[in-house]
């Protein structure tokens, strides 16, 4: 890479990446610890002719970006726990109506108002199942500002490719910590643009008829194709339908279009995994402490490694199974009561070898916390 080097917070890295990806419409509502994203958007977007709007709440924010996406814009909103709860209604709409959009949740302690200024990773399962009804979703995370940048660009690319909302699950530590970010030059990172229909004016356009490759070309609101968009089950024209076959096929499509591409959506990093007898699995800012612990134990000759997940949903079960093959012990390091732990256990044979190293008091989990769990498992005492 040969771009501009900056010293930024995670929230800034996210903004840089969104602008790099071509996002030009942001609607949001102030909430700690995501507010810097809205503040920066308010500065940067009008400078390039884009739209920033502060809405009356998070419900309105997600609805506004959905409306804007339908006119052909790349759109985003950012929030934290309480706001993310309010957005679940709109998120489900975007899933059902297949509207590309990116929703950032900078996680803080919950439930409820919880710990507004403190770190947590408690929304992993809410990202998956927060909105009602069966569906599939994409959720990505990162542990460094450089990775915040790359998964944010990925989020926009996935949202366009699969016509789906994509959730970015960051956390308070990452959002406010400053470190080096190298912004790539334009063109260096591939971007997926809106796939628009080639159906000419006057010819019947089907907004919800997938092509052979599963993708659905869109037509901008205000363009030559007038169609209906609804949160109801709908036919290939977008009109409501209760026909059992239509309903069944649409639900399967919504799930399959993402689950069948889990490999393309999978982003992860690994450190010393090959010969690891003890494997840590972590993500987000927890993964920084996990890596620290791993490097430390390696220096003492322990066969220990780290699998850092960046795609949390669809959960990379095959990858986890593969990487854990040799491991005697698997330790999930996270700042919640075991949300990824649950998925890891479900992915593995002998789930009894999977342990949790967590911290849920609003402070960042430390390498020492992880070491203490390791010693307990290894029968060495704390």
């Amino acid at each position, binding site marked *: 890479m040969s771009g501009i080097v900056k010293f930024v917070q995670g929230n800034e890295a996210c903004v840089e990446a969104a602008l790099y990806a071509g996002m030009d419409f942001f609607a949001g509502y102030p909430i700690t610890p995501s507010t810097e994203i809205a503040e920066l958007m308010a500065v940067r977007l009008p400078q390039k002719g884009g739209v920033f709007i502060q809405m009356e709440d998070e419900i309105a924010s997600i*609805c506004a970006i959905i409306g804007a996406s339908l006119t*052909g814009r790349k759109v985003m909103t950012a929030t934290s726990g309480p706001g993310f709860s309010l957005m679940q209604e709109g998120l489900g709409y975007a899933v059902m109506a297949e509207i590309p959009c990116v929703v950032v949740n900078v996680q803080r302690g919950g439930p409820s108002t919880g710990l507004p200024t403190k770190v947590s990773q408690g929304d992993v399962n809410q990202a998956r199942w927060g909105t009602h009804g069966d569906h599939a979703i994409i959720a990505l995370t990162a542990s460094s500002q450089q990775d915040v940048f790359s998964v944010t660009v990925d989020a926009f690319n996935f949202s366009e490719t699969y016509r789906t909302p994509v959730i970015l699950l960051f956390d308070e530590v990452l959002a406010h910590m400053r470190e080096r970010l190298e912004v790539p030059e334009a063109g260096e990172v591939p971007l997926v643009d809106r796939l628009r229909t080639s159906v000419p004016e006057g010819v019947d356009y089907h907004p919800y008829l997938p092509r052979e490759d599963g993708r659905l070309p869109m037509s901008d609101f205000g363009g030559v194709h007038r169609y209906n968009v609804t949160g109801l089950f709908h036919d290939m024209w977008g009109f409501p339908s209760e026909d059992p076959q239509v309903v069944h096929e649409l639900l399967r499509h919504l799930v399959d279009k993402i689950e069948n591409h889990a490999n393309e959506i999978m982003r992860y990093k690994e450190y010393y995994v090959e010969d690891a007898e003890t494997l840590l699995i972590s993500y987000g800012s927890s993964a920084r402490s996990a890596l620290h612990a791993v490097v430390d134990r390696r220096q003492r000759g322990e066969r220990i490694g780290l699998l850092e997940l960046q795609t949390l949903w669809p959960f990379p079960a095959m990858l986890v199974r593969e990487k854990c093959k040799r491991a005697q012990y698997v330790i999930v390091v996270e700042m919640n009561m075991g949300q990824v732990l649950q998925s890891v256990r479900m992915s593995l044979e002998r789930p009894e070898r999977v342990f949790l190293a967590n911290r849920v008091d609003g402070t960042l989990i430390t390498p020492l916390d992880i070491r203490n769990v390791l010693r307990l498992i290894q029968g060495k005492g704390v």
Partner: protein
Amino acid sequence: MAMKDYVRERFFPHIWCPGCGHGIVLNGLLRSIEKMGLNKNDIVMVSGIGCSSRIAGYVDFHTLHALHGRALAFAIGVKMSRPELTLLVPMGDGDALAIGGNHFIHACRRNIDMTAIVMNNRVYGMTGGQYSPLSGFGTLATTAPYSTIDSEFDVVQMAAAAGASFVARTTSYHVQQMASVLEEAILHKGFSVVEVMSPCPTYFGRKNKEGSAVDMMERLKNKTTPIGSKAKQENPSLIERGVFVKKENPEYCTEYQKVIERAMKG
């Protein structure tokens, strides 16, 4: 363009009950659009959820059948992105003013150029006759079997207080006035609110013993009067119809364009 060119004929007959006023709103709206000669590709209709919101399915525009109460929030996204488009936002009374009340007042405050049509039938029809924020004190509903103790909003006063720059009221009986008021509202540069009193004989009428659909129509005729009429002075209980507010205030998209210019200057 003929009226029928503005509708999606294959979805007729519509779902509204016999005697419902909503079809007349559709009629009035299409007449105003026909008169203005608007291009169908330039119109986006965003509706919420409820009987009223089904109107979006019948018109051959870009149509967004959104979430209950959230139509204006979706519409703001569309309008801010493409200010040159004409935004029509029909909503029900519960839709616009209960679950969507917050979005409603803030859309008024922003004075963003679109037309909100509140199809006020004083009841939640789609779910079978529960009381709405416009049912009014002392009315009967399935969720108010002993009569409501909730007072109603005055849509006109609220919209005006919240900053809408065009506010009008009409009824499904006064279809000529409806078409002309809607035309004026759509042409107005700013946030326009048009309350259309629209009878629901199936639920509100039956529960409150207002008689047949025809009786309810007559009631709209007899219980309303033009703004400032002599009849109103003599009988203050009459509900006024007409244009209450029409003023030039800074419009949101236009002002945002100025923000862009300021930002680009640096």
